[in-house]
């Protein structure tokens, strides 16, 4: 698989480490009310769709950036690649 890195162009997926569903970006606040239940939801259940899936890939053997890749789990076709930083900011994260 080739991942179209937003900064580096096409890279072999082998240079990356797969880190799972991009929902992991939305880490709950450990100090908030109901944190235990929120962390259960964060850590264990997954949508695991047969179709488009947004997922984290870490460019460990490259520029060490984190990407959010939108990929079809039925065909392995990649339809979108973003920097995880941009993705998180668009969801209202400050850093």
């Amino acid at each position, binding site marked *: 698989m080739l991942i179209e890195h937003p900064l580096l162009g096409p890279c072999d997926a082998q240079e990356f480490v797969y880190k799972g569903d991009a929902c992991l970006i939305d880490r709950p606040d450990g100090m908030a009310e109901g944190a235990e239940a929120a962390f259960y939801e964060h850590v*264990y259940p*997954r949508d695991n769709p047969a179709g488009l899936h947004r*997922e984290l890939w870490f460019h460990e053997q490259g520029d060490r950036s984190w990407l959010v890749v939108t990929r079809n789990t039925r065909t*392995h076709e990649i339809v979108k690649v973003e920097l995880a930083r941009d993705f998180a900011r668009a969801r209202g994260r400050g850093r």
Partner: protein
Amino acid sequence: MRYSGFRVLKEALTGHKGWQPVWRDPEPQAEYDFVIVGGGGHGLATAYYLAKEFRQSRIAVLEKGWIGGGNVGRNTTIIRSNYLLEGNQPFYEFSLKLWEGLEQDFNYNAMVSQRGILNLFHSDAQRDAYIRRGNAMILHGADAELLSPAQVRRAYPFLDFDNARFPIKGGLAQRRGGTVRHDAVAWGYARGADRRGVDILQNCEVTGFRIAQGRCLGVETSRGFIGAGKVGVAVAGYSSHVMAMAGLRLPIESHVLQAFVSEGLKPVLPGVITFGAGHFYCSQSDKGGLVFGGDIDGYNSYAQRGNLPVIEDVVEGGMALFPGLGRARLLRMWGGVMDMSMDGSPIIDRTDIDGLYFNGGWCYGGFKATPASGWCFAHLLATDAPHATAVAYRFDRFRRGAMIDEKGVGAQPNLH
């Protein structure tokens, strides 16, 4: 029709005209007491034991394709009960005991071959961990034996014992482990279930659940609505997909695992061997092919095919352990979709919806579990109580922090 030596002889002398299809192809009825979704090993075994051991009737197995087309016919056929943890070992030992009597029980030749499995170790720390696991197995009534390098060498003289990085320092053997002809398991259970009146409905895909007031009334299928007293779902890699139709989100990801088989060779490998320093395991089929595999591809996938980097990784592991492998040509390879749970252990439990039960999260080790999984799921469906060996396989263990994490890697389904 019962199978026997006499029967084979008689058919041989009369031109094999007397063999008949071994299960019916019935039309779906409007309603059953038990509807099992998924005609893999686990679904068929569940139906078989429901009918045979728990004396239930009006049972159907719904399969979207043909039975045995899923992982039950795609795995590398290894059976064993060499687990470490309390929640797992009694269950897998129960399964191995059922394998030992299975062919007599369902009167079908599944080629159960207890040729032994040998987990090789390559460092002192790994030896200590394997000794601990062997002791845990023995405490649970299974068999385990520590082999010295000399003993390993006697059985497998061609392995790379003095490899500079991963010398073979011995192995943990389970002599009762081995291999089974995988699709014969599906056929044997299907035939046994059919003979006890179970309807096996192929080309019958479940497309939804009919749920009213928190109760599951039946399933929508490509062959129309089928009402059910109880619905048991055992769809392996499609677990999340199917249970999402009932509004449930599971602690499971689907990943693809590949398997490989070489051209047929004369007998070289007497048992099953596993490499302890990389992910590679190998056995030789009765047709002579070397059957081997390794890691999952590592990212969510519902495609029943893998990619090249994992092939390279598996073959590298194979060459490090077993250099002669390089002389054999690869004949075929394929992939199956695995239901990787967050702690690497399965779930056999009811759901929050009355009448809807779930069996899944088998990762890449569910073939060996087939008989016990079927038995325990049938027990749960028939009695509404978990079987004694499956009490730990509950949905709520993740919420309670009571994970059964053999590998100790945490909530990383692609590492189990």
